[in-house]
């Protein structure tokens, strides 16, 4: 084995021509695995000391909250009272009691609708951008940067900017669609238009998927493309017969991560539907923009029902796990 690769199996014996003490191989992936016991003990102490801050953080702000959330989901609780064990009551009430939680299923519906529209729209926009960028050399960096800008924009700013763009009277969107003869719309105040309007913002922010698609496209060997051209395949045929199948793993990855993110959308809808003075956030006209996590947030921090909010968060967790598992099963079946 080449001693410069530095990647032999952990702790493996490495023969070497260099004259060094026999019990000390020159190239191990983790230097110090075979050091003297005293040193090894010191190493262990060092390692634990280095990990300690991160580990404390992990226990206090990740592990404990996750377990606590599960426990609280079985209690009646707000931040000031002691949690009162109620068993599965929160879950049962959320799912079946539409007097106590009148908008729970509405929020489920909104999030599912948003996911079903926003994710494919985002992927299509991203793929189109990536395909175009992949055919050019000159100016590609500039275009890529411009198309990526919406990704790094704070959601508070995104919400503010798009509320202004969607303004029914003075907004730019209505002017632009007016140019092609579509009548003015009151986008964020018409229940049927809220989800499409939000999905368009999601597609506007498709830069991350675009970069990943671009990497996927670069991974398609040019010999395949050249061969297809020689065989007389046109661009449309090449797209459906080569590009789409070769990008399937990328599309799968982006779909899974996109669905998980879309189900959790919160900050943007919070900003978009919290304007208009100090009126409380209600999730848009007729709750048409009341996403699942916005609903959860309202119960946790407006209506002081932390126990129920935790139950909602676990329903979401389980739902996300099921969807992820299904998607992976689907891809495995297809692969075999």
């Amino acid at each position, binding site marked *: 084995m080449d001693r410069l690769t530095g990647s032999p199996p952990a702790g493996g014996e490495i023969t070497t021509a260099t004259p060094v003490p026999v019990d000390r191989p020159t190239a191990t992936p983790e230097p110090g695995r075979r050091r003297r016991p005293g040193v090894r003990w010191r190493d262990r102490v060092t390692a634990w000391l280095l990990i300690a801050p991160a580990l404390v953080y992990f226990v206090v702000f990740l592990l404990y909250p996750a377990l606590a959330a599960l426990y609280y989901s079985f209690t009646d609780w707000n931040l000031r009272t002691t949690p009162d064990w109620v068993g599965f009551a929160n879950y049962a009430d959320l799912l079946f009691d539409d007097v106590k939680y009148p908008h729970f299923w509405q929020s489920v519906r909104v999030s599912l609708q948003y996911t079903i529209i926003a994710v494919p729209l985002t992927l299509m926009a991203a793929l*189109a951008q990536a395909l175009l960028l992949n055919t050019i050399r000159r100016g590609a960096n500039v275009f890529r940067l411009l198309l990526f800008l919406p990704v790094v*924009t704070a959601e508070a700013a995104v919400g503010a900017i798009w509320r202004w763009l969607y303004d029914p009277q003075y907004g730019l969107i209505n002017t632009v669609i007016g140019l092609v003869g579509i009548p003015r719309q009151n986008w964020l105040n018409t229940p049927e238009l809220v989800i499409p309007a939000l999905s368009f913002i999601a597609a506007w922010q498709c830069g991350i998927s675009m970069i990943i698609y671009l990497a996927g496209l670069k991974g398609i060997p040019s010999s395949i493309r050249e061969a297809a051209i020689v065989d007389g395949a046109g661009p449309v045929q090449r797209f459906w017969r080569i590009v789409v199948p070769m990008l399937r793993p990328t599309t799968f990855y982006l779909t899974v991560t996109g669905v998980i993110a879309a189900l959790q959308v919160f900050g943007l809808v919070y900003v978009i539907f919290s304007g208009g003075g100090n009126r409380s956030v209600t999730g848009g006209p007729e709750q048409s923009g009341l996403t699942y996590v916005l609903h959860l947030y309202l119960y946790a921090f407006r209506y002081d029902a932390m126990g129920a909010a935790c139950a909602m968060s676990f329903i979401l967790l389980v739902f996300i796990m099921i969807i992820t598992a299904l998607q992976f099963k689907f891809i495995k079946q297809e692969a075999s």
Partner: protein
Amino acid sequence: MTSVGSSQAGRARRARGIPKQVRLTPVYVALVLLALVSVVPFLWMLATSFKHGSDVYTKVPNLLPMDRKTGEWSPTLENYEHVLQLGGLGRAFLNSVWVCLVLVPVKLLIDALAAYAFARIPFPGRDKLFVVLLAGMMVPTITLLVPRIHVTQELGMFDSGWGLIIPNVASVLDIFLLRQFFMSLPGELEEAALIDGAGRMQIFWRIIVPLSKPVLAVVTITSFIFHWNDLVWPLVVLNDPELYTLPLALQQLASTESGRAYYIMAGAALAVIPVIIVLMIFQRRIMEGIAFTGLKT
């Protein structure tokens, strides 16, 4: 017809039949249109933020700060002055700068040290422990939100600057990325240093850190962008307007001044411009870094 030696590529080129410049024209047209969709919202934001209040609400939207009557170029800074002082965005801007200045380096240090131990120092149970950490990454942030607030309260950090920093001071995702990179570094230098009697910390600072500058830069900048933009955590942990970070103050401004788009757009510009500058400076590496890790912690 060309000579006998006509290659496959040559034939392919003829199959396309059209010169490259002409063939690429529609591609560039499409890209320009898409880039406009991407950028015009920002230009509209900037234009509005520089307009006098009386020039904002016009029948035909104006993409430049022009006087509505005379049509003359008449930008103004008064919206910025207003939101920075009366709107409280000046204070919020400084708060955000402070939080990022403290949080980002401390977090990077904690994550890098842990990643170094996980990647390079063998100890019993190490890899199992790391798997547990990774499993913790799968839990959605929203599930953790309520108990985290409770923990923050119990620690006496609710509604304080510490409450913005401590609950965000490490990131499993960053530890994971740094560990991957550290594991890919060759072991010889370290081994030689160990034989020469160097300590682990010396090795970390003298060997690992200099070799890892690219990945450290990516983690630093994505972490900065994330915390500069973060709305949700400050929203739930802060009550005191004096402590508001920029996104939170902007959100507040947008709901109290909802009839005055010029103020809101000036505030949005203050939040957006620093990040755009950072992105322009570090362009490519950062875009790829963000693309493959997601903008989250």
